[in-house]
């Protein structure tokens, strides 16, 4: 499947990492010799050569814009600047409908090791059919933020879990069951969101994903290697550690 554009969502305030994000957008948090955003852009350029890269920025956007100018002019990503963040659902829907091609959407707080990224990128690139694809990983029910219902590798629906819904007793064996959860990567086939009307401030999950799932197949792509959604200090430190020790499959441009 040919990816025409990659959209990296980096507009949020990163309130769950407030101690680090008062003066720095979450996507610019350092990861050793790189940072979260630079890592995602470099990986996207490596594995989706030819796709245009777009970075959605709002909170401390000037810092993200400055960071983007470090990329060579011939591979420099576009900035989608929002004075006030419109929410992932709006930004993604607008981009998909304006660009018209197949779009890979990445949450800007994701960390993937090179191996993880290369595996799902190769899988996406080699798929013959044009279908929307949701990258998912297995999580324990009591830790999952989203739960995916699937049938024969096709996503049927996704439901979100708010923190207060999480079971209190995590030792309960019922809650240790593994479920599929979203990994923050979605490939949206061209024209899939033409009839979708997003609400301002809405996330990608559940409504965008459920809209696509109601109208066409979303292939469930299994993420079996290291990936981290950086939404707490613990997960940030974990990402730093994995980045330090994981094998680098290519040189970063800077």
């Amino acid at each position, binding site marked *: 499947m040919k990816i025409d554009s990659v959209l990296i969502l980096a507009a949020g305030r990163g309130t769950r990492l407030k101690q680090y994000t008062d003066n720095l957008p979450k996507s610019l948090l350092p990861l050793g010799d790189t940072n979260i955003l630079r890592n995602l852009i470099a990986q996207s350029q490596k594995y989706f050569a030819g796709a245009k890269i777009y970075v959605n920025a709002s909170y401390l956007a000037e810092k993200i*814009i400055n960071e983007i*100018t470090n990329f060579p002019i011939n591979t420099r990503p576009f900035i*989608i*600047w929002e*004075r006030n963040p419109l929410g992932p659902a709006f930004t993604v829907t607008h981009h998909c409908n304006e660009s018209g091609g197949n779009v890979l959407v990445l949450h800007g707080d994701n960390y993937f090791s090179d191996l993880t990224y290369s595996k799902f990128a190769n899988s996406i690139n080699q798929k013959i059919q044009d279908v929307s694809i949701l990258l998912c990983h297995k999580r324990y029910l009591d830790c999952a933020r989203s739960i995916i219902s699937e049938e024969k590798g096709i996503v049927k629906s996704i439901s979100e879990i708010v923190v207060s819904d999480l079971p209190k007793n995590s030792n309960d064996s019922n809650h240790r069951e593994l479920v599929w959860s979203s990994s923050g990567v979605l490939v949206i086939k061209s024209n899939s969101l033409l009839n979708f009307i997003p609400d301002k401030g809405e996330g990608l999950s559940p409504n965008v994903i459920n809209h696509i799932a109601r109208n066409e197949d979303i292939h469930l792509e299994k993420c079996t290697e290291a990936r981290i959604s950086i939404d707490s200090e613990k997960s940030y430190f974990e990402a730093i550690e994995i980045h330090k020790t994981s094998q680098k499959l290519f040189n970063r441009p800077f």
Partner: protein
Amino acid sequence: MSAKNKISAIFLDADGVLWDDIGPGGILSGKKHAVRNLKLLPSVRKTKCYKIVVSNQTFAARRKINYLRFKFFTNALFNSLIKLNLIDDFAICYHHPSADHFFLRKKCECRKPLPGLINSMLRKYSIAPQESFLIGDRITDIQSGEAAGIKHLYLIINPKMLEINENSSSQDLQNIFIPLKDLNEFSLAWKIIDEN
């Protein structure tokens, strides 16, 4: 008419692009910088590509200088750049909605981010906006270019780049552009565009 044969243009802001943005009146000492910077821009391409300056100039609106004198100076400056073959035309908005000068106090259609200046040049030369470029140093330049349908938008980074003005509409929900460190980077981008 094929895309290659359509008439295109590079629209250039003045303050912060042709010369450093030192606030209203920067134009008065801008010429030598403009000549140097405009020489950076390539003059290649088989089809015609106009270079047009589009600029808000509020120095006279703030009563810092006599309007007619300022207009005379501005015209003379840009005409000299035309004579040097560095630009092809220019369009200036002298208005400001809260100008001290009553004659220039106007909520006009030409003050950026509104697209009046660009639209007038698109009509004058039958320029195809989807084949054209804009280089600015403020998000209001980008908004103006987007409103006129310009496809390739470049923003030179600086501390004031995301400031909006009273003409920015609440409808400007998003703006899409490529950030540049300086005008020289556009020349590098242009080579890539021209080769393709």
